[in-house]
């Protein structure tokens, strides 16, 4: 069973990290903490788990952990939003530029819209799943999804301030 967990970690770690990065708007350290606490949550009940789809399960745990942590530290977290996201800059390929632009744009969305856009469109959760994770109504999810997409579109259409986002 122990070896299974190591396999599981290898299988899901990248998915979890990418989702954590997107949810935190590109805050690398918060994302790492989120992955770590999510995996701890999984390991704590590993013996009782029957996981059929590791990646989907891991994504759900990350999303729920994020929602829980956000509620716990809401006050601090919102104060920190003024800080520039510490976007990962250790990959200079064109594809990574695209990802950086996405993270940068996500970081400029209001928190709830970002959460909904990430869960609904990046990891393809249903409206009902997102509503359950974020403890809000399905109507609120739909509204935030629409506003979030519109906000992202506006952000992505703006010329980058101070040059190319990939240069940050």
């Amino acid at each position, binding site marked *: 069973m122990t070896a299974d967990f190591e396999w599981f970690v290898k299988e899901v770690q990248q998915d979890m990290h*990418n989702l954590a*990065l997107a949810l935190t708007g590109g805050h690398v350290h918060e994302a790492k903490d989120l992955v770590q606490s999510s*995996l*701890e949550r999984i390991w*704590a009940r590993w013996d009782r788990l029957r996981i059929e789809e590791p990646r989907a399960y891991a994504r759900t745990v990350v999303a729920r952990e994020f929602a829980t942590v956000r509620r716990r*530290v*809401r*006050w601090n977290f919102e104060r920190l939003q003024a800080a520039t996201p510490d976007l990962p800059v250790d*990959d200079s390929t064109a594809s990574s530029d695209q*990802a950086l632009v996405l993270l940068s744009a996500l970081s400029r969305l209001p928190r709830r819209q970002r959460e909904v856009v990430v869960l609904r469109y990046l990891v393809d959760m249903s409206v009902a799943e997102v509503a359950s994770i974020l403890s809000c109504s399905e109507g609120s999810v739909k509204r935030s999804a629409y506003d979030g997409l519109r906000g992202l579109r506006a952000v992505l259409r703006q010329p980058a301030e101070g040059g190319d986002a990939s240069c940050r």
Partner: protein
Amino acid sequence: MSMNESEEMVRQLASAYAAMPQQFEVDADEVKRAVAARRRWSRRTVAITGAVVVAALGGVVLPQLRQPDDWGTRTVAAPVVIGSGGAFETRASTTARDWVEGANVVVVAEVTGERRGTASGTGDGTGDKFVGRWVILAVERQVWKRAGGPALTSGSTVEVSAPGWVARADGSMAPLALNGQPRLEPGHTYVVALSARVCRTDTTRAASWSTLGSGAVIPADDGVLGFGESEGRIVAGDVDHTTPGSLERQLLGDGTDALASALDAQQADMPPSPPAVTSC
């Protein structure tokens, strides 16, 4: 935004997301070590049934003791034992309404000293005892006062009872705190709702002071509500560490002026109840 534009945007997002760097690795052993460390804490959880009479709270508190999780910086050397109290208090002290109904003054005060009080058995058959504690509050500022009642001026001091310690049968002592509540640690500042017993003959003079109840203290280091000591640890505006519906949660991160406004607004809606009287 049209349907096509939305779909195009979603496609772009998915494509960018798929292009995110693939270079993250987690150490599974580190995850296991962290969980094992947390489990060691929970194995040390104690459940003590019985009653603690905390004089300052004016009521009986049934503690269900546990070791706290490991967040935050501890302000006392030993691990703090947490008791969930308040259910059997005779007077509520959580909301602005509770404070206006029951308190005579609300002050910003620093704890400047402490002394041991009397010991009483926990009643759980282990031989453990609850040891009381008295702390000295040095009043920095009176934030709110009930009209016509006794006051506390800046610079004055009052001694009130606070959660003390659990004295184990093996001779060790563990600091006790109430669940989600400050312990009243020397060197920290708090907002405290105090109720007075007043003389029958002179209701403007306090014969004695006590905290209003288990919800009557809010950490307030540097004058910011929700920041300071709670459960023996440093808290910094942690909403989950506050009681739902409480005055503390309502004003988390605000200054003491906001507290005064909230109490004034509450008072405008209700008549104050008379303070307890005693013969002097």
